[in-house]
């Protein structure tokens, strides 16, 4: 230590606070003038202290973990109460479902109801649309060993799209419900009236041949009918819309303008099959 005279030391001590305050302003200006300097100093200090912090972080995170545990334990009670309540409600629903199921089987037995087999289906990718004999048709890619048959029903994820009309060894053609050649027997769900859905090559097929007195109502749901044995009953098709020209049309659920995958359902129906395409013989089965 340098030995200084007492008055000098006192003077220095008195001066040091104003000097340091001036230095603080200097540091402030320096930090303002060169923001990068402060950043670099901070990073250097953090680098220096990181080992200490990382060592301390473990107990700190342990404490935080314990606090979180305690919080969840505290919440356990009310969570449990909530779950019990929900369980009670669900149990009531389960009872209702079981009762309904039992009633359903009882009624079925009384009606001598024949259950439908769950239909098998294959999914195929749409590779091209248009072309062929029909104006509104799509071509599906199928593997060499596909099980696609004529007359299978094609649905997209929302509803009926059409029907398989031609089957090749690696492809199949689906006649869409909008094609002018398409005739699909449908049921109007509101009145249970049968009608025919006739394609127009437009976006919305028309309804024709509904029974007298059962005029299709706007917004009525349209499902397929099992009439003629070409389709199973009850596949969703669309809703009735009256056109500006005063004709009932069906707004299809299926999005036929952007088909990319369709499911082909095999209901084992062999009703009316679509006519053979002209000058297009059925390809021989290659085995």
């Amino acid at each position, binding site marked *: 230590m340098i030995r200084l005279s007492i008055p000098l030391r006192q003077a220095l*001590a008195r001066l*040091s*606070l104003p*000097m*340091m*305050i001036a*230095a*603080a*302003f*200097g*540091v*402030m*200006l*320096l*930090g*303002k003038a060169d923001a990068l300097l*402060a950043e670099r*100093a*901070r990073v250097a*200090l953090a680098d220096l*202290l990181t080992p*200490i*912090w990382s060592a*301390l*972080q473990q107990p*700190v995170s342990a404490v*935080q973990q314990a606090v979180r545990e305690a919080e969840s334990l505290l919440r356990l009670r009310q969570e449990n109460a909530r779950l019990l309540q929900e369980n009670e409600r669900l149990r009531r629903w389960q009872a209702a479902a079981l009762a309904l199921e039992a009633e359903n089987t009882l009624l079925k037995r009384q009606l001598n109801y024949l259950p439908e087999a769950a239909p098998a289906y294959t999914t195929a990718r749409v590779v091209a649309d248009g072309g062929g004999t029909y104006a509104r048709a799509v071509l599906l890619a199928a593997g060499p060993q596909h099980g696609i048959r004529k007359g299978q029903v094609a649905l997209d994820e929302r509803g009926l799209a059409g029907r398989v009309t031609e089957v090749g060894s690696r492809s199949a053609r689906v006649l869409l419900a909008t094609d002018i050649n398409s005739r699909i027997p449908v049921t109007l769900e509101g009145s249970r009236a049968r009608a025919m859905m006739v394609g127009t090559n437009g976006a919305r097929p028309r309804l024709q041949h509904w029974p007298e007195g059962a005029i299709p109502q706007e917004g009525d749901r349209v499902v397929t009918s099992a009439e003629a044995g070409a389709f199973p009953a009850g596949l969703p098709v669309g809703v009735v819309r009256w056109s500006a020209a005063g004709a009932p049309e069906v707004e299809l659920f299926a999005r036929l303008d952007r088909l990319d995958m369709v499911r082909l359902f095999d209901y084992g129906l062999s009703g009316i099959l679509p006519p053979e395409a002209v000058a297009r013989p059925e390809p021989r089965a290659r085995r």
Partner: protein
Amino acid sequence: MAFKGRPAPSTGLLRQVDALARAAFPSGFTVLVLVLAAVPVGLPGVVAAAGLPCIFFWSVFRPAALPPPAIFGLGLLTDLLSAAPLGSNILILLVVYGFATRWRRFLARQSFLAVWLAFCGFAAVAALLGWGLQALLGWAVPPAMPGVAQVMLSAGLYPMLAALMSAAQQAMIRAEAAG
């Protein structure tokens, strides 16, 4: 600490080391508190809030051990550990030091509660000063809530830190009286 009998008179070197340790204790303790407060626990503004009680306490009760250059260093450390504009905490701590040393004769005779209340006032003024400096240096009005939180945190931390520091202070006074 109840020693049985008086400790043996220390030799020259040991006494010097002892004195040096006593002189360095306030700064060292504050540095330790600052570094510990910077451990990320998800609470912002702890560093500045934890540094202030230490500075205040030592300025009041042992100003000789904490000269302005040490305050300057501690302020710089606070600035670097927190995201405050560089230099702002230096000025705040120096101002707190200046006023605390000026009023220390009055403050040191008060009860703990009164000193704590005075410290709360200091913390509020320090937060206000920090807010002003931040507004001036950033040339934008900063939100007031962090400042309020810092004052509360500082005021809450003071009794705990003060208990530790006054225990150390008592020990040092006893050691000085013995030595």
